[in-house]
């Protein structure tokens, strides 16, 4: 991992199109300004982590049990 020390209002450039500005530092928070092309995905890490975790929870594993689960699920949906 590359570690850089920056002061408020200083910038870091990543590639030729991504620019990160340190806007504000207060106690345990850092406010960042990010300039990037629309094609660059920028997400809070926790959000992707949560979705990944939900995906892993959603994996029903071997088809074991599905023969019970699916008809029950369908029945519930129809009754809803």
């Amino acid at each position, binding site marked *: 991992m590359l570690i850089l020390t920056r002061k408020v209002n200083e910038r870091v450039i990543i590639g030729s199109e991504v620019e990160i500005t340190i806007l504000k530092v207060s106690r345990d928070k850092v406010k960042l300004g990010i300039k990037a092309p629309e*094609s660059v995905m920028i997400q809070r890490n926790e959000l992707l982590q949560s979705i990944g975790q939900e995906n892993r929870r959603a994996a029903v594993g071997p*088809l074991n049990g599905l023969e019970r689960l699916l008809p029950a699920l369908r029945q519930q949906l129809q009754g809803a």
Partner: protein
Amino acid sequence: MITFSKEATEKIAVDSRQIVTFNSGLIGLPQLKVFALIEDEESLPIRLLQCVSTPEFVFIVINPFTIYPNYDVEISDEDAAELGVASAADVLVLAIVTVPEDIRFVTANLLSPIVINMRNKRAKQILLSDTDYPINYRVLRDAPVERRSGRLQVAS
């Protein structure tokens, strides 16, 4: 009648099994790229996605428009380009379903649905922006309320 066999997926009675490819895998599971989309007329709006390389990964997916009134999916230009989507008519949108012990609390991930271009079978789990759809939307609205951690909001 859906007759899912415990042992072999080949024994699943299905009307259709199509191979779809997620170039970047699922979110948090990037190694899972190629899936069989398994559907049976009887089982709609529920389908299955089974990983081809790791068959023990099976996901239950549902047509989100059937469970959430006015569900709105806006596919970004970048995602559309990545999937080669030319027309909305080619796109199949699916929400991944999580089934807990108590089936009444089944949830669907409305924030990051799966989008499949049915013309070329390219798929992606996209992340909707500017929405506050939950990743754990309760599918059965009249079931008793379960205590669980707060809903997740889209970063803005």
